[in-house]
């Protein structure tokens, strides 16, 4: 099966973080970048670059979840069942890119669900959607 992923092109992000805003709006109907499922790391004053951090669909979160609250959808996304999630945070240190979050307003973790609203609005080409052919899909 084809799977959709977010591709990062290093050196293209300029740190506007519009992606974070649209992510939170799409999922929580609120302008609040802290509720987004991705981050932009700023490395200043040196070397002076931005690094987007996004879900790479490694599946570690699902592996470590003690509640069985995370499952994989056909398109590749790892989806949190908010009813099962106890917000224990076990998945957070397991996430290599560091894009699982908790927020004081929510009693479940925040994980990217492949909506691609972020890539749709990224105008610099720093994050784009790419479709991984079935044979390469993990």
């Amino acid at each position, binding site marked *: 099966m084809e799977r959709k992923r977010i591709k990062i092109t290093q*050196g293209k992000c*300029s*740190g*506007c*973080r*519009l992606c974070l*805003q*649209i992510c*939170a*709006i*799409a*999922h*929580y*109907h*609120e*302008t*609040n*970048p*802290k*509720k987004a499922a991705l981050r932009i*790391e*700023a490395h*200043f*004053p*040196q*070397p*002076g*670059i*931005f690094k987007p951090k996004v879900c790479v669909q490694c599946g570690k979160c699902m592996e470590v979840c003690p509640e069985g609250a995370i499952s994989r959808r056909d398109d590749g996304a790892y*989806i*949190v*069942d*908010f*009813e099962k999630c106890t917000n224990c945070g076990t998945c957070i240190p397991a996430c290599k890119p560091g894009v699982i979050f908790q*927020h*004081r*307003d*929510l*009693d*479940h973790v925040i994980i990217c*669900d492949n*909506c691609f609203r972020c890539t749709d*609005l*990224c*105008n*610099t080409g720093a994050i784009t959607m790419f479709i991984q052919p079935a044979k390469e899909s993990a």
Partner: protein
Amino acid sequence: MTAKGAKGATGAKMAKRSTSSGGLAGTTLRIDLTTGRIKREPTDTKLMREWFGGRGVVAKILYDEVPRDADPFGPENLFIMTAGVMSGCFIPAGAKIEFGSISPMTNGHGDSNMGGHLGPALKFAGYDTVIFSGISPKPVYLFIDDDTVELRDASKYWGMGSLDCEPLMKKDLGEDFEIATIGPAAENGVRFSCITHDFGRQAGRTGQGAVMGSKKLKAVAVRGTGGIVVHDLDKLTEHVTAIIKRTQTHPNMAPWQKYGTSFFVGWSNKNAVLPTRNFQTTYFEDAEAIDGPELVEKCFISHKACSGCWMNCGKYVKAEVPGKEKVFLEGPEYETGALCGSNLGMKDINHVAYLNWLMDNVGMDTMSGGGVVAFGMECFQRGLIGTGDLEGHTLKWGSVEDAEHFVDMIVHRRGIGEYFAGGTKRAAEKIGRGSEKFAMQVKGMEMSGYDGRYAPGMMLSYMTCDIGAHHNRSWTITVDMAEGQDKVEGRAKVVVYLQHIRPLFDCWCICRLFWGELDIEPEEIVQTLNDITGWNIDTAEALKTSEKMWNLVRCHYLERNRADGRTFDYPPARAWEDKIPSGPNAGKGLTKDQIETMLNEYYACRGWDAKGNPTREVLHDLKLDFAADAIEKLGLLGTPLPNGIPAVRGERYKPKAF
């Protein structure tokens, strides 16, 4: 409004109810630095609605609360920091934060803003406005982490350069804190000191950093995790997404993204308005060496954006000057390229970038800083100051070494550095001997990076700008080119219109570059505002409110400085005594009569009398009767105009760029 559940997921749990509404975060902080008392109060929504937030609210609070005889550096002056209603919402370039206080440069209302991420962070933490009063007994910084608001000891950071202090504070507090700092210039009372944030964004004009320094407020550090609730998020998202999609392919987007404003150096030079060697001429023979393409080729590291703006006009660069440490900075953008480049005779982009870094780190405005150093260089050229005044150094055009030493004298107020720490106007008063003629300022603030001698609307814009000679309120170079650079008649009504349009960006805390350069209509901006606020205003109301601010600030200036307005509105005599000596516009210039004609037209267009004083009729029309009463008591109320005031002040005009 409460947060809705996740779409397409298995159902999110409800978020907590927020106090945010209509784009406002909901809370205002009042901080007495003398006592350390911090008071929270609900944001005055009526005040925000009437004055549009940002610059408008700053203008009204300063007018209402700062005594007319208060020293800008004294405890009675306020220092205000406010994020606009659109800041941090889902809009492009909704990134600005506005600062305001009585300016130590002009002794009138002063305000300045900057992009980056601090404005949105303040609102995410739950605050629209912070109003500081008093003077702290020791250096402090304001710490905001959502509900935690504290004044903390800043003795560790006091004395540090702005660019050095920010990474240390992030290391101490956390990378996700947004930091704004002042440098030693502000700590030492240099009047044109700025506020720096995000490794190179500045609120540079009117000396807001200097006021922070006088209050012993070294920095502000903010982290916010809350959300902003807007009036109609679905409509806003749809409307803004359409603007985003449309502007992605606008022909202006690519050059702005690649060069930021730096490529305007070449443009200004080609059109012969580039200030060169302290505005002696308008064409710089070495402009190509300091233009945008040269910056990108020799110094570029990365593009750097403000919140929500992929136009990313910020260029993060390195500057390498032999014998000096390699430095990193954001810039030089156009104004710095002009005022620390051609205006100082700098022929190497690395030298311009180095001076940019130097001024950013000591915390002085590169615009006024460039103007002040240029004035010093012309004084040296003319023998009004010499090596004996400069600790054995020279101060020659194009010398980065000389400029660096002179800046150090100013920052530490050594010798004649003390004169120049007050800006060109005050320095000229000390140096005398005709130097006032080429102190390139109005009302005590240095001119921006455009020579107005063959761009009459630009000269009028400087003369009448409410905060001193700044281009931000009205920029007319393309208007002058379209309507005739030899002609002054008819220019005033366009200047007035632009003076009503452009300050609105500073009220709503959105960036003019994105919203003004991509053929976005004023009506679209107003719709965005309405989607956020629910104010339901139209363009006519927006313009009239902006005019109200303009007149309030004018009255405030008159009340503090107590003379007819016209007396403050003249540029230095170079504007009419010296014709442009070289370049494509050689021999061109303005006459004193033309200056007077423009002022006469401007005042008539505003409904002010020939002395430059607002009339009761126009103030009444703007619901500013209280200001009319105040200036009347001082004998500064305008004489009624024989034919009454114009029904509408200013004439709508769509410039090629503004």
